[in-house]
């Protein structure tokens, strides 16, 4: 009975409004933060940083952004990749065109550019709903794919259309080693995730969820659909844009438009569904799942010493991946986050069954 909230009374609404009202959760969270900021940089290998942690963090961020839109506001989007691309290319342009532009400002600029785009492509959502809206976001996806490919200034006249960024610096510090990159991502992700969490549990978050669950009723209690939907698009694309810029700058370093193709959009959608729609923690869990699973499946034959060819392994990986997704959806359609909270619920009652 380690996990109990007995004896913890909330004496003010402020306390009840706290992020983690239960003390054990609070401690666990602080421990997690400490591990992430202190222990991990000591312990992890370069490979872990570059191939696991950094992509995990950045994709988590993008997933949070998408979750705001899909999970909280209920607007299906298949164009996340495109908004990441906008963030990446905008940040790139700021970086190369403005001498001495601080990296952080470029990243934020990327986010803002994505915001503008997001709102623009969000406009149809005022009229089009559900799966039909997917077409608007797909239009964004394909249009921006094309745009970044075709319009020369976007890539600073790179003849091949692929671009790369120079060495990174934040507040005069070099960000070149994997640890530094990791810490940069971690800080940004932590800040933005907290901000996103605050939004979704605040007034605006409730407006989004209200739009998602029952838009007519939302209108009747005075929520403006235009504002609610477009603000969701804006916030979502901002976060996604920053994630895109990070993905390009920190993870890839050099990229072509295909890095932000429709596959990326699907991948992110997977993350939030597996992780849990309408859950910030779920975005992290989903990203972890999607990043780690293929690596795991990839290593599995090696560990087991099975002599299967790369091709076969990769087909099997596809199959297992697909099967696991279906499996998870069946076990818990609300995703890993829900699974986790159910487990917690049980833990709270443990050792009594109900």
């Amino acid at each position, binding site marked *: 009975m380690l996990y109990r909230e007995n004896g913890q009374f909330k004496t003010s609404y402020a306390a009840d409004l706290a992020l983690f009202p239960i003390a054990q959760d609070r401690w666990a969270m602080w421990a997690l933060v400490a591990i992430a900021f202190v222990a991990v940089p000591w312990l992890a290998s370069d490979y872990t940083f570059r191939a696991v942690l950094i992509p995990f963090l950045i994709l988590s961020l993008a997933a949070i952004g998408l979750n705001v839109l899909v999970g909280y506001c209920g607007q299906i989007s298949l164009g996340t990749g495109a908004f990441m691309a906008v963030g990446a290319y905008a940040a790139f342009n700021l970086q190369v065109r403005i001498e001495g532009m601080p990296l952080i400002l470029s990243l934020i600029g990327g986010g803002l550019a994505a915001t503008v785009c997001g709102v623009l492509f969000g406009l149809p959502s005022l009229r089009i709903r559900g799966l039909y809206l997917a077409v608007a976001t797909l239009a964004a996806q394909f249009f921006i794919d094309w745009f970044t490919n075709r319009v020369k200034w976007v890539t600073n006249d790179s*003849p*091949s259309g692929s671009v790369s960024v120079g060495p990174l610096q934040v507040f005069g510090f070099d960000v070149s080693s994997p640890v530094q990159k990791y810490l940069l991502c971690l800080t940004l992700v932590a800040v933005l995730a907290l901000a996103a969490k605050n939004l979704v549990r605040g007034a605006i978050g409730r407006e989004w969820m209200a739009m998602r669950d029952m838009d007519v009723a939302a209108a009747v209690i005075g929520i403006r659909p235009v504002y609610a939907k477009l603000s969701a698009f804006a916030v979502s694309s901002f976060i996604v844009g920053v994630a895109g810029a990070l993905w390009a700058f920190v993870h890839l370093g050099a990229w072509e438009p*295909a890095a932000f193709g429709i596959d990326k959009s699907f991948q992110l959608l997977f993350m939030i569904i597996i992780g849990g729609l309408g859950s910030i923690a779920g975005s992290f869990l989903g990203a972890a799942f999607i990043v780690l699973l293929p690596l795991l499946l990839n290593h599995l034959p090696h560990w087991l010493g099975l002599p299967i060819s790369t091709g076969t392994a990769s087909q099997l990986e596809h199959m297992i991946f697909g099967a696991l997704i279906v499996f998870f959806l069946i076990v818990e359609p609300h995703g890993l986050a829900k699974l986790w909270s159910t487990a917690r619920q049980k833990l709270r009652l443990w050792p009594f069954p109900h």
Partner: protein
Amino acid sequence: ANEQFIPLLVYRTGQFAPLGIPWGDGKQDYLKLINARDGGVNGVKLAFEECETAYDAAKGVECYERLKTKGGGASGFDTQSTGITFAVTDKAFVDKVVVETPGYGLSASADGSVFEWNFPLLGTYWTAADVMLQDIAKKEGGSLKGKKIALVYHDSPYGKEPIALLQRRSAAEGFEVQLYPVTPPGVEQKSVWLQIRQARPDYVLFWSAGVMTPAGIREAQASGFPREKMYAIWWAGSDHDVKDIGAGAKGYNAITLHNSSARDRVHEDLKKFVYDKGQGTGAATEIGALAHTRGMMIAMLQVEAIRAAQEKYGKGKVMTPEQVRWGFENLNLTADKLKALGFGEVMRPVQTSCSNHMGTDWARIVQWDGAKWNLASDWYQSDKTHIDPMVKEAAAKYAKDKNLKPRSCS
């Protein structure tokens, strides 16, 4: 362990698998052959591990990160993909590992003074386009003036690479370039070929990949564009690209880095030492297929770089990535050496240097006769008057963007 580690980035799944599979098989087969026949390089066995990229840049980066330090350091990445090459090039500078991109990659990386770690051996898309134009000019009686040349290309950095060169040469030589991008994957090309039917270019250069190739040939057939007037880049000119179309592709031209149809001693050795022992990576019928031979050739270049490094840094030792880089930079495969290696019929001599990371750029045209590829031209070398300055310019720009100080090669 006394083993030299070679990472093998491959794609055996996804869109480009038909090309990726024989290519990957070829690479692996050659390494197996060296181990089986020669017991490695001067006694140093070759260890290798494949990593599946599915032609995806992010996956490629992961593979690169995973394998770059393995076995004391990777002896060079043949990424098999332009996108992955872009993504790992910057990292390679920092990590100090070689990226070898025979026949693909950044055209500018031929300049070794800037791109210390990149080796676009045997040719780039600029040299390829140049050679195609030379062949066309030859057919047209020496001059391209007034001709219309269309480029139908995979709308990606890969497909766009040749544009710069084409435009430069068209300005200089007075022919017209028409550009037709095809959005990947390129399953539907009707509008492109209708436009071509209307614009009636004299030739079509075909920078295609994957399903775009058969779709394009079919559409050319359906819209009545003569296949003899099509010139495909080497990645769109393998057996699997045209085999199923058969007679429909008759006359289709492709450029190649090597004598594709040649069967050389290396093929026999491979059969004898590897396939006959049941160790072959793919099906025995694949031996001699264009993409497979190309894979072997790429692996051979890598092995020879290691051998060259050993000559300098100590025979029978495992080379560090930096030593391998030296080997790549000081390759000198003369005709005799190639012959000894069993590649005498397959390719022409290569010699690299500090400033020239491409080594050589011999290429020739082959033509599909409905059942097999036949040689349709002699060897060409690209015309350096346009390409060299372009490489210099682009490399300089890259160095500036990255705050790199080019080394001096003299």
